[in-house]
C-alpha cells in the first residue's frame, strides 16, 4: 500500500480551480520533486496534503488514514506528515532549541528533559548543535531553515513536505539546506518537495512530477523527465529553466 494516496483531488479558490483532479501515489522512502511554473498548483497540492487547505473533492490518505477536515483527524495527520516552509516560520520568541522542543511538549506531551534531548539530537543532525540557545534572528537564513527541518523531524514524521524551502535563501546558503535534505533522503525519509532546484531534483529524487495548469502533466524518473520530456509544456519549462 502506498504511503500517501492522492486520488482525484480538486481544489478551487472561488471560481478559480487550482487543482483539477490530481492522482499521485507515493511509496515509502520515495523522494518526489514537484516542478512546474508558478500558479501550476504545486504549492497548493502540498498544502492540501497537510490540511492547510481543505480540498474541494477527491481524497487524500496518509498511511491508510483519510484526511478529514476536523481538528482530531488533522492533528493525527500532521503527526505523520511534517512540513517545511519557504519562509522558515520559526517562532521568533523561542530559541532554536525551544522551537524544536515546543510541539513535542505541547502536542505529544513529552516531558521536558526528553524533549530537550530530542531537540539536541535533531539540531545535531542538521549540524546546528551549537546553536541550541540562539534566537532565530541571530541565525542566517540557511541556519533558520535547518532549525525548521529539525523542528519537523523532532515530531518523528513518516513523510516531510518541503514547500520551496530554498527559494527564500541567498544562493550561497542553498547548498547547506539541500545537503541536509540529501542526507534525509539517504536515510530513507519519504520526501515530497516543491522545488526549483533542477539539479537537485535530478540527483536525489526517485520521481519527478511536472504540474501544469492544475494537473499532473508528466511524471517519471528524473532521467526520463529531464532527458526526454514528452510534452511541449515540459520542454518549454525546462528550456526556460536552462535559459534563466
Amino acid at each position, binding site marked *: 500500500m502506498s504511503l500517501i494516496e492522492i486520488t482525484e483531488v480538486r481544489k478551487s479558490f472561488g471560481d478559480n480551480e487550482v487543482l483539477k483532479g490530481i492522482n499521485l501515489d507515493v511509496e515509502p522512502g520515495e523522494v518526489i520533486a514537484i516542478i512546474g511554473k508558478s500558479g501550476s498548483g504545486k504549492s497548493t497540492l502540498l498544502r492540501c496534503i*497537510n*490540511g*492547510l487547505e481543505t480540498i474541494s473533492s477527491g481524497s487524500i490518505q496518509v498511511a491508510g488514514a483519510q484526511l478529514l477536515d476536523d*481538528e482530531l483527524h*488533522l*492533528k493525527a495527520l*500532521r*503527526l505523520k506528515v*511534517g*512540513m517545511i*516552509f519557504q*519562509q522558515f*516560520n*520559526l*517562532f*521568533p*520568541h523561542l530559541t532554536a532549541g525551544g522551537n524544536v522542543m*515546543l*510541539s513535542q511538549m*505541547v*502536542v*505529544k506531551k513529552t516531558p521536558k528533559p526528553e524533549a530537550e534531548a530530542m531537540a539536541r539530537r535533531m539540531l545535531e543532525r542538521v549540524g546546528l548543535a551549537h546553536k541550541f540557545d540562539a*534566537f*532565530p*534572528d*541571530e541565525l542566517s537564513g540557511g541556519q533558520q531553515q535547518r532549525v*525548521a527541518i529539525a*523542528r*519537523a523531524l523532532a*515530531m518523528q514524521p513518516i513523510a516531510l513536505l518541503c514547500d520551496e524551502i530554498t527559494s527564500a535563501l541567498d544562493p550561497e546558503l542553498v547548498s547547506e539546506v539541500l545537503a541536509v535534505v540529501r542526507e534525509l533522503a539517504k536515510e530513507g525519509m519519504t520526501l515530497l518537495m516543491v522545488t526549483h532546484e533542477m539539479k537537485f531534483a535530478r540527483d536525489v529524487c526517485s520521481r519527478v512530477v511536472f504540474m501544469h495548469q492544475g494537473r499532473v502533466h508528466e511524471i517519471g524518473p528524473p532521467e526520463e523527465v529531464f532527458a526526454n520530456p514528452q510534452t511541449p509544456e515540459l520542454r518549454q519549462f525546462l528550456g526556460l529553466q536552462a535559459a534563466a
Partner: protein
Amino acid sequence: MTEFTTWDILRNLLLATRWTLLLSLVSFIGGSVVGLCLLWLRISPRAALRRLAKGYIELFQGTPLLMQLFIAFFGLGLFGIDVPAWLAAGVALVLWSAAFLAEIWRGCVEAIAKGQWEASASLGMGRLQQMRYVILPQALKIAIPPTVGFSVQVIKGTALTSIIGFVELSKAGTIVTNATFQPFTVYGLVALIYFALCWPLSKSSQILERKLNVAHRNH
C-alpha cells in the same frame, strides 16, 4: 458657617479616589477577561461567532459611554430591576472596556504573520495551543503599550459614573464644591489627582513601547 481648610477638601477627595481606583481596576480586569473571550470569538474560524463579536464591539464603540451608563442604570430599572449605582457603573465600564480591549488585541493578533499559524498547525497544535504558545506570546509584546494606554481611558471614563450618582472622585468633587463654594480649588485638585493617576500610566506606556521595540530588535 463652617470653614474648610484645603486639607479637609483634599482629604475628602482622596477618600473618594479609592473608589475611582477600585472602579478602574474592576473595569480593567473585568474588561480584560470579557475582552479576551470576545477576542476569541472575533478571530474564530466560524463566521457567525466572528459577526457576533463584531456586532458587540461596534455597538459599544459606536455609542457614548454615558448612554451605556444610563441604560445600565435607568434602563434596567424600567423592568423593575433595581440596579445600585455601583453595579451599573461596574457592569457598563466592564462591557465598554471589553469592546475596546478586544479590538486592540485583535489588531495585535492579526499583526502576527500567517506563517506562524501555519507552522504551528503543521506541527499538530490545536487552535488553543497555537494561541497560547505561539501567537499570544508574540502578540502580547505588541499589545502591552496600547493596553496600558487604554487603561488611562478607563480611569478617565470612571468620571462619567458620577452622573448616575456613584461617588467617586468627580462626584466627590461636586459634593465638596457644594459644601465649600470653592469650585476652582476643588476641581483643580480633582484634576490634579486624575493627572497623578493617569500620567504615570501614559509615561510607562511610552517607556514600554521603547523597551519592547528594543527587545524585538534583539531577538
